[in-house]
């Protein structure tokens, strides 16, 4: 009966074992158990994948078995994603992120960072002058975030907020609350950049207004220096992160609005990836800021120590992001 067999059937019978072997190995690898693959198996996958890809070409040209072709298409696709997927180990990717990708992405974003910081600072300055001239501005700018800290409050109660050490509370909880809240807000600020950056600009301006109005309130009571320490111990990190999130949003907004030589789609996705790196870093910065604010600020009650921490963290961040460094391999 041998002569009655189809050529495509013989073709399949000869290669079926390899295909099934590849299927098993891919199944193992895809389930994230890449470590359970032995070295020998790992080396086998690319070879088997190329054989499957060549089988697919041959099958398309010579076989009319639709289910076989569909199977090979699925197998080759899975193989392609595995073989050409990310190969580096998680720890390697992490080191590369901190040593190269993150600082490079941030320093590559300096123009947007400057815009973002300028909007923030101008808004803060405007709020400061307006509130100093006319206290009525304060409520419309700070609104619900005041929590009793307004011009009706006594100087003593305002001062108490700055040096309240929350004794008897689990400070880690406060830090976590601050982190989750800030991270959510900055992700939102970033994502809103899609609408040509306009909502991001409004968002940055609003943050600046609140800050400026608060400074005006405390300065009017002669507590300006003290408020500075209270704010900057974590603000050096948190506000920086906030400005970077705004900058990341602007990068996307600008790419969508002015794609330049590229198509709008290409420009947007390139900007999206670049800004994505910055945003992963922003989340890391906010964890640091949350710890500094939730724990550091509540336990360190001396102004100059607060300023010292602020100065050190700011110097570290600036050096980390902007100091020229050797090309990472």
């Amino acid at each position: 009966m041998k002569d009655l067999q189809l050529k495509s059937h013989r073709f399949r019978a000869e290669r079926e074992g390899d295909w099934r072997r590849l299927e098993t190995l891919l199944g193992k690898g895809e389930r994230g158990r890449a470590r359970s693959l032995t070295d020998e198996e790992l080396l086998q996958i690319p070879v088997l994948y190329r054989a499957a890809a060549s089988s697919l070409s041959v099958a398309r040209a010579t076989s009319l078995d639709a289910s076989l072709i569909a199977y090979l298409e699925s197998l080759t696709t899975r193989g392609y994603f595995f073989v050409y997927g990310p190969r580096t180990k998680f720890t390697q990717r992490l080191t590369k992120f901190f040593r190269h990708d993150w600082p490079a992405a941030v320093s590559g974003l300096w123009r947007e960072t400057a815009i973002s910081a300028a909007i923030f600072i101008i808004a803060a300055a405007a709020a400061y002058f307006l509130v100093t001239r006319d206290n009525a501005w304060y409520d419309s700018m700070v609104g619900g975030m005041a929590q009793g800290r307004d011009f009706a409050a006594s100087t003593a109660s305002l001062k108490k907020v700055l040096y309240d050490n929350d004794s008897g509370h689990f400070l880690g909880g406060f830090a976590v609350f601050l982190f989750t809240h800030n991270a959510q807000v900055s992700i939102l600020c970033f994502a809103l950049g899609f609408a040509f950056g306009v909502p991001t600009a409004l968002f940055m301006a609003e943050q600046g207004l609140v800050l400026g109005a608060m400074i005006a309130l405390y300065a009017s009571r002669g507590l300006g220096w003290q408020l500075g320490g209270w704010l900057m111990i974590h603000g050096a990190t948190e506000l920086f992160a906030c400005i970077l999130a705004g900058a990341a949003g602007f990068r996307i907004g600008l790419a969508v609005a002015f794609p330049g030589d590229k198509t709008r789609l290409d420009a947007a996705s390139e900007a999206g990836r670049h800004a994505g790196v910055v945003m992963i870093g922003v989340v890391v910065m906010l964890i640091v800021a949350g710890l500094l604010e939730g724990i550091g600020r509540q336990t360190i009650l001396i102004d100059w120590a607060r300023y010292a921490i602020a100065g050190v963290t700011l110097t570290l961040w600036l050096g980390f992001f902007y100091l020229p460094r050797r090309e990472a391999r």
Partner: protein
Amino acid sequence: MTATFNAKPSASAGRRGLFGRRRPKPVYVDPQNHLVREFVTPEGVDLRLQLGSAGERAAAFVLDGVIITVGFVILLLSAAAAASAMGFKGQGAEFVGAIELMAAFFLRSFYFIFFELRPAAATPGKMALGLRVAARDGGRLTSEAIFTRNALREIEVFMPATLLLLGWLMSMTGAEAVDGWTVLAGIVWTGIFLLFPLFNRDRLRVGDLLAGTWVVKAPRRTLAVDLASDASERLARFAFTPDQAAAYGVKELQVLEDVLRRRDPRTLAAVAQRIRRKIDWTAGPGEHDADFLAAYYAALRGRLENRLLFGHRRKDKFDKA
């Protein structure tokens, strides 16, 4: 080494921009299925990737939403149980609260990112529907692309959903009635983002657009039996003349393959009858429809594949090639 790749199915180079300007009609790889894209691997094989349809994407998202919600409820209940065991006071209870807050945050913001970073590049919902995320340019799927595509979910779904839910709760408790205009704005906002994939050919979400990704089908198929293999013995009993074996083309062959795999007796009988009439075949005594069809399938495929080797691909029965 990355795949060369035609992101746009159109042959037009002059197409640009999201706005205005008429563009020429796109040329699809597969006119029957507009979601198939040419995708040439470095080995030079066209994988013909198929994009996930809007329905599948929505179903996957709903599935993930259910998983997140269930996880959230379990978290809330266990945190409440732990806190009540501590009498709702002291640093212990606050510690539990902190853990819960952190876990809820990660569930909301990092559920998608975590799963898409794994080798399968798919959340459980996507996996259930045989979908995965891939880079549009055929290159590697990077972690920043995954972060970006999921950060955008924040404005696509979570922010408006939270606002609407909050507004609803507030109006229920009568604390503060939410402005009808605010609700309307929220619904319009969400609607624009939710329906965005329907208004572009590649079914891109805003997040996909910015991250340079798309969602493709990568189903796991098992290798089915070759229908021609067990037919080879039977073929001896059914001796078809060359004319009889040449009655149909590839299209009919594949319909027949489908019929044989489904093994529905009524369809088998109907199809067997049609073929017998077409090729003038008189059924012998005790001849099973399934046997006849399997044998005819093998004969037809043998004939068509032979012609294929000589460069003739007969599309269907009307094709005279």
